[in-house]
């Protein structure tokens, strides 16, 4: 079959239109299904504190906070550790090992998140309860952020699992962008008398910042939207956490845990939670893209004409 050129272009455009239609259908159906919740509860329900379906209260604030808090814990760990690991893989590990270690990291990025959740719940939760939480309480107890019993499951564990889960993605991307910083930049710094660390810190990392930011965005997006790994280890409590050790819930874990039994306004509220999650996810993504574009314009553009 050899389509005439016009028909060929038409076919491609149609299929592309199907994709656009699907995305529109996706967004619109989410809005339509969430609408009852908005019309019954007004807009303020999104930031209300109480989730109590039996009394018709569907405040999303605890879950929005939970989502932000778990993501923040994950990133606080993942940014330095991911960057350090990526630097080590790109510049410090002996050449022979670089390729194989790099591949291993990329493969780990493909491990399904539910596997991380299972490991977190069964292996890490007891360790967290017996060792990590008492330790954190004894060291940081004075901040007041670590009150309450050591339970294993909770914000800390969820944050740690998210950290472990996003780490391979972040390291794989960061390593790639760090490794492609031109060698003449590295040599230029070396020739000026820079120490090894100064070369990495002042030239390599800034030179790769656009790509590093991209990796960070991807990691943030994955952490914000992760459902099952978090649902397994966060303890699923619909209250605002008063301590980092407390059980909590995130928007995705709320949806997945309540979806089975929900009807009427509650179901609509869950769709609304999905919509809020979608807005946060797309917002972070778009913001990061804008940021990447502005830093890319800042300098990395054509340095020299050969």
């Amino acid at each position, binding site marked *: 079959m050899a389509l005439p050129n016009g028909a060929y272009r038409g076919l491609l455009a149609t299929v592309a239109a199907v994709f656009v239609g699907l995305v529109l259908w996706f967004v619109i159906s989410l809005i339509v299904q969430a609408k009852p919740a908005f019309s019954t509860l007004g807009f303020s329900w999104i930031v209300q504190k109480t989730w109590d379906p039996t009394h018709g209260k569907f405040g999303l604030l605890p879950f929005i906070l939970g989502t932000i808090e778990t993501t923040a814990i994950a990133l606080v760990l993942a940014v330095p550790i991911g960057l350090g690991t990526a630097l080590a893989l790109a510049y410090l590990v002996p*050449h022979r090992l670089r390729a194989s270690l790099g591949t291993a990291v990329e493969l780990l990025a493909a491990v399904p998140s539910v596997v991380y959740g299972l490991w977190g719940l069964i292996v890490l939760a007891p360790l967290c309860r017996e060792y990590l939480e008492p330790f954190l309480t004894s060291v940081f107890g004075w901040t007041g952020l670590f009150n309450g019993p050591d339970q294993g499951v909770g914000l800390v564990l969820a944050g740690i699992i998210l950290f472990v889960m996003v780490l391979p993605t972040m390291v794989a991307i960061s390593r790639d962008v760090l490794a492609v910083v*031109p060698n*003449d*930049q590295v*040599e*230029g*710094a*070396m*020739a*000026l*008398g*820079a*120490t090894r660390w*100064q070369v990495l810190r*002042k*030239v390599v990392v*800034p*030179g790769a*910042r656009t790509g590093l930011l991209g990796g960070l965005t991807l990691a943030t997006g994955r952490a914000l939207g992760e459902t099952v790994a978090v649902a397994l280890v966060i303890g699923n409590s619909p209250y605002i956490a008063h301590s980092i050790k407390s059980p909590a819930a995130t928007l995705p874990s709320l949806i997945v845990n309540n979806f089975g039994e929900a009807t009427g306004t509650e179901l609509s509220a869950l769709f609304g939670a999905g919509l809020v999650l979608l807005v946060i996810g797309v917002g972070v993504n778009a913001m990061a893209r804008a940021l990447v574009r502005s830093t890319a314009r*800042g*300098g*990395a*553009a*054509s*340095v*020299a*004409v*050969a």
Partner: protein
Amino acid sequence: MIEPTPPASVEERVNFNTGEVLMNPSVGEPIMRLDDVTVSFAGRNAVRGVTFDVHQGEITALIGPSGSGKTTLLRALNRMHDTVRTASVTGSVKLGATDVYAGTTDATLLRSRVGMVFQRPNPFPTMSIYENTVAGLKFNGVRKKALLDEAAESALIAAALWDSARDRLKAHASTLSGGEQQRLCIARALAVEPEVLLMDEPTSALDPIATKRIEELIGELKHRVTIIIVTHNMQQAMRVSDRCAFLLMGEDKAGELIEFGPTAKLFSEPTDPRTLDYVNGRFG
């Protein structure tokens, strides 16, 4: 009216941390001495048995066809081969009283005394013009704003970049033209006030006009820093250098020094027939 400055005392001229004499030898005295320098990668020689002296306040050119090891030799002088695991340098390189390859000599510190300019302009793209100029000083621990500013201005003036760049010191280095970028790289190297400046075919990526500016610049920098320049362009070597080292690939594929001497003599009446062949364009 310039205030006459009293002569510096001996204490000021000797760095008691390292015991090194900071004062330069007078013009014309050897500042860098290469003795039987051999560079090899994974056991294969790339440059073999090179011996010559680099004289204070002069421009020494390394010439020879490609593959003769000019760049390899140049990079041995500030220990740039240190990062290559398989590389080894034997023989002796001396910078003043410092043995470049002695175990007690720190490569980082050495590189602040022996600057380098590369083939392709490589300013740091994320830094401004000013930040690029003072980058080396900051790497070397200089924090005083006054010293940074003074050194930056002096280096930019010396690199003939001050007039065009003084009003946009905060602009990104990538806004400069190729020739200006290379002059920024020269300024960046000069700001550290090295004793020797290594230049690895600094004009090979530039157009003829930019090349001319850089060549003029090199001549003007003589009073400030001793220059060793690698060039594949014999006219350039003739125009800018005081002395010339001619290297050629030997039978074992390693570069060796064929002839070393004052540029005028090397080009007009070379002692070695191979030099004659080369300067007359009989090699590739």
